[in-house]
């Protein structure tokens, strides 16, 4: 142990020396850039594409190139080709560390974004009139998970809800379009939250809990048919005026549209519903190569990068004030304080993956 500590210290010291040489020798304007390549959850791709982010990273000596993947599928990639992975929650981070052979790496959690359900105005109104949603303003509200899951359990169709017949597009089973819970983070977290509600408000932790909740989860997933790998697809469909009336997304996707003043057209009418029971999990930076070791900390602590993260709708660590201030000019859509939202714990990765498999009709659900 002492020996390991000694080596670690030495590494730190050498690192420090190099850093001093680099910073001292070149000055801030001529920092040589480290080119790093990472695989990220798709929700962050616009952040990394933002020219101001590129600039802020360059000022700190980084050129960052990214590719997207489902967060829960990253461990299947040839991770050696990347300098870092940046899944959208902490749960898959361990699998990624193991797969990349960097177990015990110093991960950081620069920001997070809660799950929301985006609804078309008509759909939100009908759900509210039928007791599945509590509106808190014209464009925001709370999705009542108990009543919603009850409706799912009972195979409720839109046609059976009062007021739905006025709207052509509201027909067929009432469901939330999620992503694939086995590969995509938002889908997995949705399963985590719904399994909690279905398990009488406790985290599913054993086979009995899996067996108890799996049939409902199977319904939530099977009615959707084909599942998308990321929230980008249903979200873009929503913006283009097609797709389902209720889609699972991250708050960041909505917040960034608002902050960048792009919430026009189809997007302007959306209603942002916060599930009353949810699992929040921070986007977690996993360094794979030495080159990217400090990048996570930089993203978490650099004031400029934190500001830019907010611009893209994320909530930085300890950043409620920053987020609230940035979204204040666009009231009516968001719930910056997350008031009235019950945050519950996620099952272990093993249990969660078992739930996802059962939800997809694999495993032994009848």
């Amino acid at each position: 142990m002492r020996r390991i500590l000694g080596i670690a210290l030495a590494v730190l010291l050498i690192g420090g020396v190099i850093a001093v040489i680099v910073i001292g020798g070149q000055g801030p304007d001529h920092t040589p850039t480290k080119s790093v390549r990472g695989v990220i959850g798709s929700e962050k791709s616009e952040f990394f594409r933002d020219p101001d982010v590129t600039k802020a990273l360059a000022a700190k000596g980084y050129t960052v190139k990214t590719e997207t993947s489902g967060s829960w599928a990253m461990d299947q990639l040839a991770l050696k080709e990347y300098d870092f992975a940046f899944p959208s929650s902490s749960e898959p981070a361990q699998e990624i560390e193991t797969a990349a052979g960097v177990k015990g790496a110093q991960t950081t959690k620069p920001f997070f974004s809660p799950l929301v359900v985006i609804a078309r105005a008509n759909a939100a109104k009908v759900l509210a009139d039928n007791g599945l949603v509590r509106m808190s303003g014209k464009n925001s509200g709370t999705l009542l998970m108990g009543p919603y899951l009850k409706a799912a359990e009972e195979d409720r169709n839109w046609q059976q809800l009062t007021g739905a017949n006025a709207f052509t597009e509201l027909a067929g089973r009432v469901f939330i379009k999620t992503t694939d819970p086995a590969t995509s983070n938002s889908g997995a977290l949705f399963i985590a939250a719904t399994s909690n509600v279905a398990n009488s408000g406790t985290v599913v932790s054993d086979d009995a809990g899996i067996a108890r909740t799996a049939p409902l989860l199977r319904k939530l997933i099977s009615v959707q048919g084909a599942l998308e790998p990321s929230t980008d697809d249903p979200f873009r469909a929503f913006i283009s005026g097609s797709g389902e009336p209720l889609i699972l997304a991250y708050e960041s996707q909505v917040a960034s549209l608002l902050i960048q003043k792009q919430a026009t057209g189809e997007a302007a009418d959306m209603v942002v519903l916060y599930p009353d029971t949810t699992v929040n999990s921070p986007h977690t930076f996993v360094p794979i190569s030495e080159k990217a070791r400090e990048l996570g900390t930089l993203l978490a602590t650099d004031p400029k990068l934190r500001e830019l993260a907010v611009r893209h709708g994320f909530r930085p660590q300890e950043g409620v004030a920053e987020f609230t201030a940035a979204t204040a000019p666009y009231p009516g859509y968001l719930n910056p304080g997350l008031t009235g939202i019950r945050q519950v714990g996620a099952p272990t990765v093993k249990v969660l993956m078992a739930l996802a498999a059962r939800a997809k009709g694999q495993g032994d659900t009848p």
Partner: protein
Amino acid sequence: MSPRTARTRARLMAAVALAATLLGAAGCTSDGPSAASGGSGASGSSGSSGSSGGGPKQQEYKEGRLRVLASSELTDMEPVLKAAKAATGVSVDFTWSGTLDAAEQVASGKADGRYDAIWLSSNDYLRLRPEAASKLANETPVMSSPVAVGVKPQALARLGWKPQEVTWSAVEEAVAAGKLTYGMTDPVHSNSGFSALVSVASGLSGAQSALTDADVRTAQPRLREFFKGQKLTSGSSGWLVTAYAKRGDVDALVNYESVLLSMNDRAKEPLTVIRPKDGVVTAHYPLTLLTSAPAGARESGRLLTEYLRGDAAQKAITEKTFRRPVAAGVAPAAGLDGERRRELPFPGSRSVADGLLASYENELRRPSRTVYVLDTSGSMAEQDRIGRLKSALTDLTGSGSSGTGERFRDREEVTLLPFGDKVKQVLTHVVEPGNPGPALEAIRGDVGSLRPEGGTAVYGSLKAAYQHLGQGNADAFTSIVLMTDGQSGDKVQDFDSFYAGLPEGQKHTPVFAVLFGDSDRKELTHITELTGGRLFDATDGNGSLDGAFEEIRGYQ
């Protein structure tokens, strides 16, 4: 080589032969890419749209040139991709493919190293193959378009329809009452046909959520009625539009809204584009990088997708192609109706999707009557042409375990008409539903007995093919495939006047001609244009005859 491997190889060769370089298209006519304006049927001497490009056979990745396996309707992206090249330095080399074919290539690993990206109307089917998951990296939806029905104004008036109120059920009822006919692409070979099939099946089954096997069974009787109205089939959207324009007696087309609106943009008599009230399936065209692509290609792909998702490109896309933008803040082009529609879910299991396709092929669609007019003149003995012909035809008979689209269909009447100086034989077999083996075996036997001998009486033999089709079941998709390796020894005028004298119904039988050996492109182009067929190029190496025959299946 097993039949299955041979088959896949043939498809690959066809795909490669069809590789079309968009950037090389700078010299194209101002009407845009030939396939979008209808392929060889309408565009004069350009020949088959895909194969005339003379794309490289198999290429390594070159810096800044993405090799993309794509849905053929993306020919209309040419102007946008030109601008993308100017802005990003990244160009696209397309190879066209249908959904099933693309899924097979990606899932089996055959796409690895051959393509850097796929760009289909949807990846929903592909993702039903579990092996495909690890093959797909970045996936970025670029634009959207729902399946719609384009109806002639006269038909609309006749039916008394209000466009906003029309449902899939109403369409089915109109067909059942004999009041509506339409064209649709082949779901096995074309993405738009596949989406249309899912839309119709969902709409007619009354399914409230994703289709199940039971839903498909329930919907069978109504689906059969619905498909009685399908008078035109095609392996690609582009040719469907051409064939439709030539026919004049078909009331409607089922295709993507974007294809129908683009067609209207050029047409004298625009169709009323209806998105059925009970729901649609929408394509989102995810540009999808493959994990097997070299890092440089993935970086090029990233640049390209970033550009395509930008406001300028999104605006150009919606205005030039009538697809809907996926960027907030870019308004859809004029003519894109904003009223919302229910999104019909795509099946979540492969058994449902494949079951639906198999049912369409073998039970629901009108049967095919197919004549192969085969040059077995003396010159076919050269370079083992006869051997290649036999192998290509044998491939079409599949094997006992052939999947959907990999053998002659149930209920299909297949006629081989080998000729030399004159028609040598007329050999007809009908594939019996539930018991396809004997007919397929008999066809293989007939193919095996073909002998190269005599001259090349193309026109007289074509006449015999029309005469054969003139007898027997008139309620079928009829088509003639002409394969010749040389110039005709008899007179074109005789055939032209014969064709002119055919009853109107028989004139609808197209000739799909295959360029092979020393065949005369001009002669064959004339035949395909006269009959509303299409030219396929198989002069490009060993596997290309298999590939051409395989591709023609989408048109039969």
